[in-house]
């Protein structure tokens, strides 16, 4: 990770601005600060939507302001002014079948980490993972808190299609795909939970501040 010593604000064309929190590590404490900032700036009339990323926040404009420097300054001031808040989220338990056809890259994680399948399953299913942000595709959650011992680099060639519910590891992160699509991550298991229903007013099952616990349903060796 390239460390930032000061918060940084940059423009994404005239569509949005990106605020990046300082710090070398991705932490839950910083993410709580990001959530507070999101809640604060979403009230600003120029802002259509405040979208948390991983220790950063994108503000999509309802209408881009003429005085962009003024907005950037207000953003930095708001960061200093708002206290981090711990969101009172829900805990969702996901039953996972590890390995087998639903976990085609388990062998690659074994090869990279030098750990056995049982150790990997144990280390992956032990933590309670906070949802930091949603992104990538509808309903997809970026999770914090994976044990670094099972970190495995992203694949050299992305897989063209992984199914919805695929549980995978990409670098130091883990996540669950919400719908079929391409992925560069290592898929180690599968779950049948449905994460996204576009017919609902709140279409995503999970929100930032919620948590995921993976429950071992089955291990196929």
């Amino acid at each position: 990770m390239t460390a930032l010593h000061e918060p940084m604000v940059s423009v994404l064309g005239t569509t949005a601005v990106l605020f990046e929190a300082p710090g070398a590590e991705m932490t839950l404490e910083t993410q709580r600060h990001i959530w507070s900032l999101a809640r604060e700036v979403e009230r600003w009339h120029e802002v259509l939507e405040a979208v948390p990323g991983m220790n950063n926040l994108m503000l999509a404009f309802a209408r881009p302001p003429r005085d962009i420097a003024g907005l950037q300054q207000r953003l930095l001031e708001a960061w200093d002014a708002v206290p981090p808040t711990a969101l009172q989220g829900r805990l969702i338990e996901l039953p996972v079948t590890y390995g087998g056809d639903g976990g085609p890259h388990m062998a690659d994680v074994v090869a990279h980490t030098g750990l056995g399948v049982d150790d990997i399953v144990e280390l992956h299913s032990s933590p309670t993972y906070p949802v930091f942000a949603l992104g990538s595709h509808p309903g997809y959650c970026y999770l914090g808190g994976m044990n670094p011992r099972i970190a495995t680099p992203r694949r050299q060639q992305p897989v063209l299609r992984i199914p919805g519910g695929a549980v995978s590891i990409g670098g130091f992160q883990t996540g669950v795909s919400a719908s079929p699509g391409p992925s560069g991550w290592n898929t180690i298991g599968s779950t049948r939970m449905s994460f996204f229903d576009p017919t609902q007013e709140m279409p995503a099952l999970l929100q930032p501040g919620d948590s995921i616990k993976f429950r071992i349903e089955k291990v196929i060796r």
Partner: protein
Amino acid sequence: MIEVITVGALTTVQDRGRYGCLRWGVGTAGAMDGVALAAGNLLLGNDADGAAIEVQVFPFRVRFHEATAFALTGADCDATLDGLPLMPWSACTAQAGQELRLAAPRPGPARSSRAYLCLPGGVDVPLVLHSRSTQLRGAFGGLDGQPLQRGDRLRAAGGMAEMPSGMLGQMGLVPPELALPLKRDGCAAVRVLPAAEYSRYTADSHAAFWGSEWKITPQSDRYGYRFAGEQPLRAIAPMEMRSHGIVPGVIQVPPDGQPIVQMRDAQPTGGYPKIGTVIEADLWRLGQAPIGSRVRFIETTWDAALDALDEVQAWLADAARQIALHRRTRSAA
């Protein structure tokens, strides 16, 4: 009712886009050429949020099962109605049983890539998360979340028989690529605002980025355009990014140094370094740029980028005035 007779890959129903849903991981989607879509809606007297059929592979043919007005904007595709030629950027009326055919976009320096078929009141598909745009990755929006297939039938939300008065004859607009041309050294161009990682590229990379032509490779679609240049862009030092929000127009630089511009179906987050962003006011130009063509990137400023948005709005306002005038003239006749 219209029926799709001949259709190529990734012909979709699109409106202005789906806004306010990035927090759920839902990208914007929407028409690749928002100006052509807006003009088509104006020609029919539709609201600005009307959905249209975006055609990017040709030929494309539909049959009208009842009399209806329609508008065609975007790429000039030598459109014919039962063999009779139609003016580009115009509205007219089809009778029941007539067939509309769009051929390959006309070659030449102003060649565009995507055509929009607009119907009175917009294409009648359900609103999903406040938009009718097809969300291909999420498989929702548009017609059942899928590209159009042969045999699909679509209705106009305004009803086929409701034709705006005075729109029965043809009137054409001067397309924005002629009214708002943008070139650099004879090459098609788009304006770019530098992004967060711009200063972390080498001076040679900056010179190549602004100074050379970039070719749109065949690996380009509604998700993004992959460009190829003679000199790849090199960072001063490798960068490891945290996943963050991105928008259509963001120019990412993957490890091979050949830039990728995110387009309308871009995912809402990304992790590659960003050298710049094609400004919102110029995204329609890129949406119409053909695969294999070359593009120059022009550095711009925040104020100039907002002025450019105002110019697009002014062109649309002028188009609206011309259409209103034409309607009054015909009603009086």
